[in-house]
């Protein structure tokens, strides 16, 4: 019991630190060819004051509702079958997210069998993995409401080029 207190205090400080990072997150974010990233180069979403989302967040909405929602439910809200990502994306790091999507994950027990498939060789997922990541981040942390984003930025030329290179088409 006695030991718990410093731990809690530490957690409290960490929380504050995280909040501080969060608060400065907007400023630290930068845009490159229509794609937003944090100071350390992790992809992120952008929502303009009028609600316009960046192309990749919008694209992530589309790809999520093709590839992911039949298990994880509409808008990342979860289903009877698989967990809601709006919650788990608050704590899952970008590298861990990539790892789980590419390699899959199994939690098979007596009461519950939960299996995330390995999607690493699925171009419909992996060519848009950053898009899906930033969309879910926007749902988890950016206050993006449920449903189709009302307004979006135009598709940047870089997105087209990436798509073609990724699928190996011209």
């Amino acid at each position, binding site marked *: 019991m006695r030991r718990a207190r410093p731990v809690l205090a530490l957690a409290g400080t960490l929380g504050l630190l995280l909040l501080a990072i969060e608060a400065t997150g907007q400023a630290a974010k930068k845009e490159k060819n229509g794609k937003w990233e944090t100071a350390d180069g992790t992809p992120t979403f952008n929502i303009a004051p009028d609600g316009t989302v960046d192309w990749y967040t919008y694209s992530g909405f589309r790809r999520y*509702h093709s590839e992911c929602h039949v298990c994880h439910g509409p808008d990342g*809200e979860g289903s009877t079958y698989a967990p809601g990502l709006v919650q788990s994306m608050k704590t899952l790091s970008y590298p861990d997210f990539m790892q789980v999507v590419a390699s899959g994950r199994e939690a098979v027990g007596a009461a519950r*069998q939960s*299996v995330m*498939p390995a999607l690493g060789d699925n171009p419909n997922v992996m060519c848009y993995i950053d898009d899906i990541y930033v969309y879910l981040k926007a749902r988890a942390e950016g206050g993006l409401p449920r449903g189709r984003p009302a307004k979006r930025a135009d598709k940047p030329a870089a997105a087209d080029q990436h798509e073609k290179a990724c699928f190996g088409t011209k």
Partner: protein
Amino acid sequence: MRRYALAGASLALIAFAVPGAANQDVLQQTGKPEQWALQTGDYANHRFSKLSQITRDNVKNLKVAWTFSTGVLRGHEGSPLVVGDIMYVHTPFPNVVFALDLNEDGKILWKYEPKQDPSVIPVMCCDTVYRGVAYADNTIYLHQADTTLVALDAKTGKEKWKAVNGDPKKGETNTATVLPVKDKVIVGISGAEFGVRGHVTAYDAKTGKQLWRAYSLGPDQDMLVDPEKTTSLGKPIGKDSSLKTWNGDQWKIGGGTAWGWMSYDPDTNLFYYGTANPSTWNPVQRAGPDGKPIDQKWTMSLFARDADTGMAKWVYQMTPFDEWDYDGINENILADIDVGGQKRKTLVHFDRNGLAYTLDRVTGELLVAAKYDPAVNWTTGVVMDKNSPQYGRPQVVSKYSTFQNGQDVNTKGVCPAALGSKDQQPAAYSPRTGLFYVPTNHVCMDYEPFKVSYTAGQPYVGATLSMFPAPGSHGGMGNFLAWDAGTGKIVWSNPEKFSVWSGALATAGGVVFYGTLEGYIKAVDEKDGKELFRFKTPSGIIGNVMTYSHKGKQYVAVLSGVGGWAGIGLAAGLTNPTEGLGAVGGYAALRDYTALGGSLTVFTLP
């Protein structure tokens, strides 16, 4: 062609030579009203029981007699079987089978649990549901999620034989029950969302040896069709009827799986089933070489096949060139009813596309095609003029054509949604009233197709969709209704808060039963739908209501355990586009009403 016909003929001879062939047994067992020996009640898929102890007057007194937990949390579809003094209960993955002793309130006589690789779980698209075991000749037929077909001794649970029907690594899985007919067991396959090429396959009921396989698409010899003798709407289908309607090799990953209920008519020896959607969901990618719509035969079709040889007698495509995932696998109910003042041998089918079809089941002639939900808007209806080049084809409304609107365009307000005006949840037919009792969805969608590429064993979808309750209606997501299939008219309709995802049961007591996603079992009057009884079971109901009688007492039983497509689409509630983009509507989230858990509840009168 001739080769198949000869093989079939010799097999038929063998079948008749064996005394007590399985078909006799299924007919005998389903002929006993005290039993529920087939998932569909009988070969005709009536889901009607002659038991009449529970009536419109006394159903309000129903009490729980006993309950049974399955120990599995996933969605529980299908129903128990009762044969003699034993009840057979199945579960979703891992597909456990329990034999329960009705003489001792469901004491477990034996339990069978197969070992399956859990990697099949995420390949199953929309939950690991299983629609139940079949019984014939003291054998229980279990068709596992990983497509292993197992024959078990019905008294001991011991394995008799095993056969493997498909490969989950390619996306081939199973959710359906099997059809025991004569000396065979006929099985289907799932996986159209993974680009699986659909088929039905017959196995020897005694040994598990594969006898024939009939694909839904591809070359004539693979499909077991005869270009001259197999007909569609009364005309021979001709050579290469499927190949001609696909662009290049797309048919090889073309879908058209068969995962629904099957029915069988002993008089004509034909069995009936429907085929699923073409893959992908992006119609632009499936267009013909000229960029125009092309039929993609025989996806979205009803097949009548000879039960001995598998040869197709007739086939009818309901939704040529699907643009909305209106998968055609729903059940086909065989009933002799009045159509246009004449008694006809009909097949009645409530399709996902929102149209209810009445066909002559012997010839495949189309008699009635009508909307069974007034919200249906993607079509103006089916052309019934036999002289029209469009005869038998639904007329597509351009505004709701996801193909005409094109790739990367969000087509809004299409009714019904991809889960259909009705999904697999089977309707019931009562010979007392001549009416069909239909569990339905009342949900519409926005649908945006886009380009996808195919990888074996990976989802092959290619569309974003969002769903919402039918606008301008009662605000709920379902209806339970009575249908006149002779005239194509709704007789009565009860609104429901959620989609009705439970199979109906009609009884000689004048009572019709069904379950709801909140978990209620409801009893209504066959005449007007008036609610007579309700009881909230432990979890949402996506199973089918069944009835049996033991030691002179009638029981009604249903599996609870929410899940399936309903659990995925509705667990979080649906958004309402009319309330402004992104707003979460006042529409109920299923998770506010019920939680996971498989259990059986058995009712009787005190």
